[in-house]
């Protein structure tokens, strides 16, 4: 599902450049659930964005869900992300003017299309996570846990092969966080989806099948 070789991403800083992320080799099989851990600033989120095709590495091979993202153009990367990758963020990233149902449908609109069938699927997904009676509520009218469940539904709406999560439990209390993680992993496992989760929380990381410390992926100088 994921294959990275000699990937590096750096940013300009003053007169020089700072390496934000360097991975000599990373392979993740389809259906695998992996926790990415590492100290702050180790490049976890940067790696996640590279896997999503949001960031283009300086060099290296990035193969995700059958596509060489390092070789695709920007629009093709966007299209690939919309159809094959679901993303869940620490800050949820729901759009405030839209209802729960519409937020989920936004994922479909930029993915496989937001027709009537997708509308039914979005409603069914929200019902499955216990928000069947909150379809037309806006994010501000929902609790933190409910908002995160909407974000999970949005990530799943296109039935993606890969789900990328960036500290998905960071803004929640432990009980709510565990419930949400349970839900996500259950749904992902049921769909045979690959999950990559960036986390600082050892307990959450322990719930995944494998934990990868970013420090161990750095290429030798």
């Amino acid at each position: 599902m994921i294959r990275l070789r000699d990937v590096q991403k750096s940013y300009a800083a003053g007169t020089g450049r700072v390496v934000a992320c360097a991975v000599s080799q990373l392979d993740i099989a389809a259906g695998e659930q992996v926790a990415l851990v590492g100290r702050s600033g180790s490049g976890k989120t940067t790696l996640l964005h590279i896997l999503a095709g949001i960031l283009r590495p300086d060099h290296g091979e990035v193969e995700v869900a059958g596509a060489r993202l390092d070789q695709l153009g920007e629009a093709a990367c966007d299209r690939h992300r919309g159809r094959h990758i679901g993303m869940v963020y620490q800050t949820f990233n729901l759009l405030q003017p839209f209802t729960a149902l519409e937020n989920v449908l936004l994922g479909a609109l930029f993915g496989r299309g937001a027709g009537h069938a997708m509308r039914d699927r979005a409603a069914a997904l929200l019902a499955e996570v216990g928000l069947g009676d909150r379809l037309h509520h806006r994010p501000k009218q929902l609790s933190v846990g409910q908002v995160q469940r909407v974000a999970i539904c949005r990530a799943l709406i296109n039935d993606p092969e890969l789900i990328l999560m960036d500290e998905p439990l960071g803004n929640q209390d432990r009980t709510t966080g565990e419930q949400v993680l349970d839900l996500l992993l259950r749904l992902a496992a049921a769909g045979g989806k690959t999950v990559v989760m960036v986390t600082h929380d050892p307990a959450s990381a322990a719930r995944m099948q494998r934990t990868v410390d970013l420090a161990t992926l750095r290429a030798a100088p």
Partner: protein
Amino acid sequence: MRLWSISLRNLRVRLVATVLTTASIVVATALYAAILVMAEQTEARYKGSIGGYQAVVGPKDASQLELVLNTIFNVGEAPGLFPLQVAIDLRAGKVSRRGQVRYAIPQARGDSVSRHGFPVVATLDEMFTAYEWHGAPLPFAAGGPFRFSWDELLQLGEELAAYENGRRAGEAQPPPRPLLRPAWRQAVVGSRVARTLELGLGSTITPVHGKMGEFGYHEHPEASCEVVGILAPTNSPLDTTIFLPLGTHLLIDGHEAGVFVVEIPPGKTPDDAKRLPVSAARIGLTAIVVDPKDHFGARILRTEFGARADAQVAWPQDVVPRFLRDIGNAADVLTVIAWLVLLVASVSITVAIYNTMNERRREIAIMRSLGARRLQILAIITGEAALLSLFGAVLGVLVCHLAALLLRATVEDMTGVHLDWLQFRPWEAWLVFGVTGVGALAGLAPAVKGSLTQVADNLAQDY
């Protein structure tokens, strides 16, 4: 869900800015539509008013525009008098030797009715029997024409000339002045005259001389006439005209001195001229409405009146378009102003949307992270500008029609132009389309900025 529904939602979220920006588009579109409507209706009125006025004969020293505007459009004072002899010659086929005239109807004007100043046109009954308005006699809403024929005019002219010659010669017992026959005290009024003055068949109108409240103003009760006919609306100056028999005009008290046109012979003074004999052929007219039988007749008229010293012929079909072109220049200036207003409104769209771009960076980054391409972001933001403009343009056109509904009576009173507020024209659809396009273009700059939003940087920020 579609991209345009995101645009629509974004407009709703920023409701105050949306309403204010839309208002500027509404004003610009309504102004532009109003200018076009007025220009179009004015042109239609002027061109349509030419009606059966193929040619207008008038005094030699008047300008053709003056003659046409006064005779057809009731604008200004009559530019002068010329002798009835011209009409006699025209009707006898002497001017255009081969009798190329279908009708030549004499007119005299100078008085008016009511404080509204509806002009009085003294003429023959042929104005309602021979004269053709767009190919048919003038339509009547009620009643019918008065009776005053060409022969009656000639006979009255002889009687008036005999009386005047006796008076000028200082005879002890000059022939009596002809009396105003009761049968001639009849009037036909235009539709707006009837509506404004609340006249019906049998009502009485009294011509006045001068303007009410001004020096020299006086009524002519001796020439009060009964309304025997009310014309159907024509959306032309005919609607504001009052027609009286020419005989009534000639016999109004005080008109005696000006009834005859007398040329002052060389070496004579005006006082000498007052003692010179007159004839019926010297009765003064202000215009003759002429219809040549064909193009050949028109050419003969043009040639022969070119050489004639006492009168000239004006061709409304030539004069009016020329006049409208001059008016058109003024309308063009207004159109430019309307375009400038639209331009300012477009800039306001650009500014309104551009100013939101900073606060929308995260929103755009989220959509990009969900798979939105730059082009889709461009389409969403441009769509906002286009929708804004579309609403404004549609509302602007509706406001224009509403204004036409509310102001039509005032506009008609002030300009005579009838505004048909229910008539939607094809160019209005083009106007909406154009304004929407201009608005979309105005949204392009902020849309480009939005589409260039850096995804990773803005997703990383925790707002």
